[in-house]
């Protein structure tokens, strides 16, 4: 198993990064750090996906000298999927940061536990 993990080193590291990002999302109390953890999770997923496309000894999928042979280029499909994903991740980061600014304006703190307490206090009052 260790040899298989060392052979797929990118995928191993991507999976470890996913777990680290998830733990940051759960454990940190500051909202900004939670958002950074979510971004780490998403980039780890893109690394996992795009490392499926790499083939040893072949070049990037840009046609050079008119060679359109299948055996000269890597797999272009995962790169296309990840390209969409990167842009979607920046849009949801923007929305989350806007929500953080509004929460700060309302509750004057960034600690998620205190915000939950204050919100519950407002509900009961």
């Amino acid at each position: 198993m260790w040899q298989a993990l060392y052979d797929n080193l990118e995928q191993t590291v991507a999976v470890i990064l996913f777990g680290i990002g998830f733990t940051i999302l759960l454990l940190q109390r500051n909202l900004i750090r939670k958002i950074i953890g979510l971004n780490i999770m998403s980039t780890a997923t893109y690394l996992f996906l795009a490392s499926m496309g790499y083939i040893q000894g072949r070049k990037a999928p840009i046609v050079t000298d008119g060679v359109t042979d299948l055996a000269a280029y890597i797999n272009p499909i995962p790169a296309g999927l990840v390209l969409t994903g990167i842009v979607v991740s920046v849009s949801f980061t923007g929305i989350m940061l806007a929500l953080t600014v509004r929460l700060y304006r309302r509750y004057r703190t960034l600690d998620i536990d205190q915000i939950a307490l204050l919100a519950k206090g407002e509900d009961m009052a």
Partner: protein
Amino acid sequence: MSKRRSDWEQRPQARFLRWMRDGYGALDDQITTSISQPAAPRPDQEAMEAHDILVGTHRHERELALDRLAHYDLQNWANTRGRKVLGRLYAVLALLLGLILIYFLLNTVAFMPRFASADVPANNEVIARYVEKGLEETGAINIVAGMILDYRAFDTLGESTVLFIAACAVLILLRIDLDDHGQPMQQLIAEESDDRHYEPKNDRILQGSAMVLTPIILLFGIYVLFNGHLGPGGGFSGGAILSSGLILYLNAFGFQKAGRFFTYKIFMWVSFFSLGFYGVAKAYSFYMGANGLHSGIPLGTPGAILSSGLIMPLNIAVGLVVACTMYIFYALFRKGGL
């Protein structure tokens, strides 16, 4: 034999022994010792019966009071000291969950096909079609750009829509509307109103370098955008680079000067028309293709800049949407509007 200290009853060892023996907490101890007074002896029978009834009521009430105090005590503990204990328990469990997740995923990775090998199940006939016929069917030299803007153009339309919706959502959350007299309509805190009139301090280094860098960055962005089908790049990266140049200009020279060429109306119309043009052009292409008709868009010679049919205009459309979205994000965060 050691003499017991005079404050033995309050020491932690004594409390612990008492807790082990009886199971009471400290507060319960105080309540029990304060409430249980020794009953005074009554001489005659009625007085004794009355006293018994009274003691029974007292005992019942005392038990009720003890219950209520224990409940209150539990709530109190959960709110003050229990929070620390539960917080530590949550941290330990979260860490354990993360480690278990990593372990299971690593087990899965051990069974994945070998990295960088050519005979994985992901290399099937789809990529054979894209790579071998890609150049003659789409005319794009960059196979990835040809794939996301010709074979899989629907995904790119969905993703541009996601960007547009994100810009709308941030507009709703952060925009500060002005009424007719130029006063903000919402309630602002003091720092917000100070931030809205933010103009730069005319920093010499920043303005000097922005004067040199901004045209270079904008030119590079336009180059990446226009050559999306000939080399790496395309709509998303070109749009992001364009917006970086505009944000640098905005930071260095302020909102007044940037408002001379990029107003809110321009942002609205450019985003709307780019997305609309993308939808109409691709709808035409899909309609022609689905009915077996030959679409009249020429493919040109591969390698020239005006080639590959619709890919260059679509690249420009996507790039403009991306640039406008990123710029409006920044302006909304900074000032609450354009």
